[in-house]
């Protein structure tokens, strides 16, 4: 096995470049190194101007999501050994505007996330919950907002107005939380065309999720809920509101 490995990293300087280019770096190959370790090596030893986001290095913060050989990955959980001895291509997350090198602009996601009100809406009372009630939504609460699902979703790429998998999955997480009473408030946002109905069920969001959340499943569940609500409002227009 070679002692070094090649990394092809996207470089983009808004002051100088019209479009991103690739720069090739040679970094030491170590079996226990992840892609993020290689990027940190480049930053420390080869080129201090390389820009990228990272924080926890343990798959919790969701900051280091990038495209690794064309797949959305958390670079802190993607080992170089999976690609060695071939070169590893590291690009910024697909479908997001690139600010610099591997850093993407994520305001769009943050705005959408806030719109779906991903918090418990409740007027009063104690927040009691049984373990069985917790199990209902627990897997959706594992989302770390890494945005890999957005980078995997062609619908989001083609229609940037789409609310997107993570935001809908998180909304659903609170909708099915027994303590929450805000499902009706979220319905207006989620049942729009840009909400659940824009999803064509490609399913790739679920495949790439590093925390094994199932955003595609959440969207289909919510489609069923929205259709039932619509049908109910049709049958009982006086009781819908």
């Amino acid at each position, binding site marked *: 096995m070679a002692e070094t490995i090649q990394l092809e990293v996207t470089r983009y300087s808004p002051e100088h470049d019209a479009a991103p280019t690739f720069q090739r770096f040679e970094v030491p190959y170590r079996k226990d190194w992840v892609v993020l370790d290689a990027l940190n090596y480049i930053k420390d030893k080869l080129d201090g101007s390389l820009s990228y986001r990272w924080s926890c290095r343990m798959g919790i913060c969701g900051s280091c999501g990038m495209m690794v050989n*064309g797949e959305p990955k958390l670079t802190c959980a993607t080992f170089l050994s999976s690609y060695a001895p071939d070169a590893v291509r590291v690009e910024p997350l697909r479908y997001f505007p690139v600010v610099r090198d591997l850093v993407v602009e994520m305001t769009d996601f943050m705005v959408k996330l806030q719109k779906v009100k991903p918090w418990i809406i409740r007027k009063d009372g104690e927040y009691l919950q049984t373990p069985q009630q917790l199990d209902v939504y627990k897997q959706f609460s594992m989302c770390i907002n890494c945005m890999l699902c957005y980078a995997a979703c062609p619908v989001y790429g083609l229609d940037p107005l789409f609310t997107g998998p993570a935001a809908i999955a998180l909304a659903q997480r609170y909708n099915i939380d027994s303590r929450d009473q805000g499902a009706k408030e979220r319905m207006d946002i989620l049942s729009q065309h840009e909400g659940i109905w824009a999803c064509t069920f490609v399913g790739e969001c679920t495949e790439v999720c590093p925390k094994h959340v199932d955003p595609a*499943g959440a969207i*289909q569940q919510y489609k069923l809920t929205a259709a039932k609500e619509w049908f109910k409002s049709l049958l009982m227009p006086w009781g819908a509101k």
Partner: protein
Amino acid sequence: MTPHEAKGATQYTTYHPRWYRTRVSTYWWLGKWYYLKFVLRELSSIFVAYFVVITLLQIHSLSRGPEAYARFEERMRNPRWTPSPFSLCCSTRSHGSISRRGRWSCA
């Protein structure tokens, strides 16, 4: 103020860098087998819709009596009207497989 600024569009300044936006290719679905499978699955809906129309026509002709149904059967014997049962079966199967894509763990 330029017309661009008047529209509220993002302007390049020292503190608000110019972003690079990648254009999504028309052929994005050819980039990955998973996406191609998705597009093929969507295309299979044409066969599913065709199957539904044929079934409705069959029911309609059945309701109009034995002669109308015999005429329908005669028409359907023409291979122009009916894709092979195998292709219909494959299409409906592949289209039906969508429910297995998500994990539906909370459903």
